[in-house]
C-alpha cells in the first residue's frame, strides 16, 4: 500500500515538473501537498517499525557484541536464554527488554536512539556501554509477573517480602547473585555460539 502511494505520488509530482501549466489547482494541491505529506507520515511509521527489529539495533558496529551475545551457547546468560528460549520475539529482542514499559516509553527509546546515532557519527562512543539508569524490574515483570515459574521460584520465595521488594524495584532482578550475567558482551568473542537453523 505504502509503495503504491509512493509510486502514485512520485508519478503525479513528475507530471507537475514536466507540465506545471497544464494541471488543475486541485490536482496540484493533491500532488504537492496532500499525497506527499501523507506518504511521508506513513514512511515515518514504517521507519519506526523497522527500528524495533533486532537486525536494526545490531546493524551498528558498536552493538555487534551485544547482538552476538544473544547467540552465546550458554543459557545461564540472561539475554541468550531469553533469545534462544523464545521468551522474547527474536526479531524484536532488543526492543522487548530495553523499552521502558511506561507511558511515552517508546518515544523516549526512540529519542535516545536518535542521540545514539548522532554520537556514533559526530561524538565519541564510550569505551564501556551502560544504561542511562539502572535496569528497572518493571521491564522483567511486564512478562514474568504472575507467571507460575516466577511465583514458584525458589530464590524468589526465599524471604516472605522478597517478591514485594522486587515488585517495588527495591531489589533488582539483575543484582549480584541473582540474574547478574545479562549480556557478557565483553567476553562474547571467546565464547562458542549457538547456531540454530532458520534463525536470523
Amino acid at each position, binding site marked *: 500500500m*505504502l*509503495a503504491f502511494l*509512493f509510486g502514485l*505520488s*512520485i508519478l503525479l*509530482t*513528475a507530471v*507537475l*515538473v514536466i507540465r*506545471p*501549466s497544464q494541471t488543475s*489547482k486541485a490536482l*496540484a*494541491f493533491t*500532488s*504537492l*501537498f496532500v499525497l*506527499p*505529506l501523507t*506518504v*511521508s507520515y506513513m*514512511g*515515518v511509521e*514504517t*521507519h519506526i517499525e*523497522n*527500528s524495533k*527489529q533486532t*537486525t*536494526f539495533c545490531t*546493524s*551498528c558496529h558498536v552493538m555487534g557484541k551485544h547482538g552476538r551475545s544473544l547467540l552465546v551457547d550458554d543459557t545461564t546468560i540472561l539475554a541468550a536464554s531469553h533469545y534462544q528460549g523464545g521468551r522474547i520475539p527474536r526479531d524484536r529482542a532488543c526492543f522487548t527488554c530495553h523499552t521502558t514499559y511506561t507511558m511515552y516509553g517508546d518515544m523516549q527509546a526512540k529519542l535516545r*536512539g536518535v542521540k*545514539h*546515532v548522532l554520537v*556514533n557519527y559526530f561524538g565519541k562512543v564510550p569505551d564501556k556501554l551502560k544504561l542511562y539508569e539502572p535496569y528497572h524490574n518493571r521491564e522483567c515483570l511486564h512478562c514474568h509477573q504472575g507467571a507460575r515459574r516466577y511465583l514458584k521460584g525458589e530464590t524468589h520465595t526465599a524471604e516472605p517480602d522478597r517478591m514485594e521488594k522486587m515488585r517495588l524495584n527495591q531489589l533488582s532482578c539483575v543484582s549480584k547473585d541473582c540474574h547478574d550475567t545479562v549480556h557478557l558482551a565483553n567476553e562474547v568473542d571467546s565464547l562458542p555460539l549457538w547456531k540454530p537453523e532458520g534463525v536470523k
Partner: protein
Amino acid sequence: MNAEHKRIRIAAALILGGLLVERLTLGWAHPTAFFVYAGVGGLLLLLGVMLFLSTLLGGATSHPASPDPAATTQRANSADEKPAS
C-alpha cells in the same frame, strides 16, 4: 510559462526529490536510513510544500491587488482627457 508555473515546477522538483530519497531509504533498515529519510527527504519535501503553499497563497492575495495593465492604461488615458477644473 509564467512565474507561478515556474515556482510550481521548482516546488514539484523539490518534492519529487524528497519523495525519491524517502522511497529509497524505506527499504534500508539502518539507523542512518531514518536520518537520510528525515534530514534529506523530509527537508526537500518540506521546502517544496512550503514553496507550493506560498505560491498558492501569494497568487490568491496578489491577484486582487495587482493592477491589470489594460485597466491601468485606460484609467491613465481617461485622466489625461479629463479637463482641469
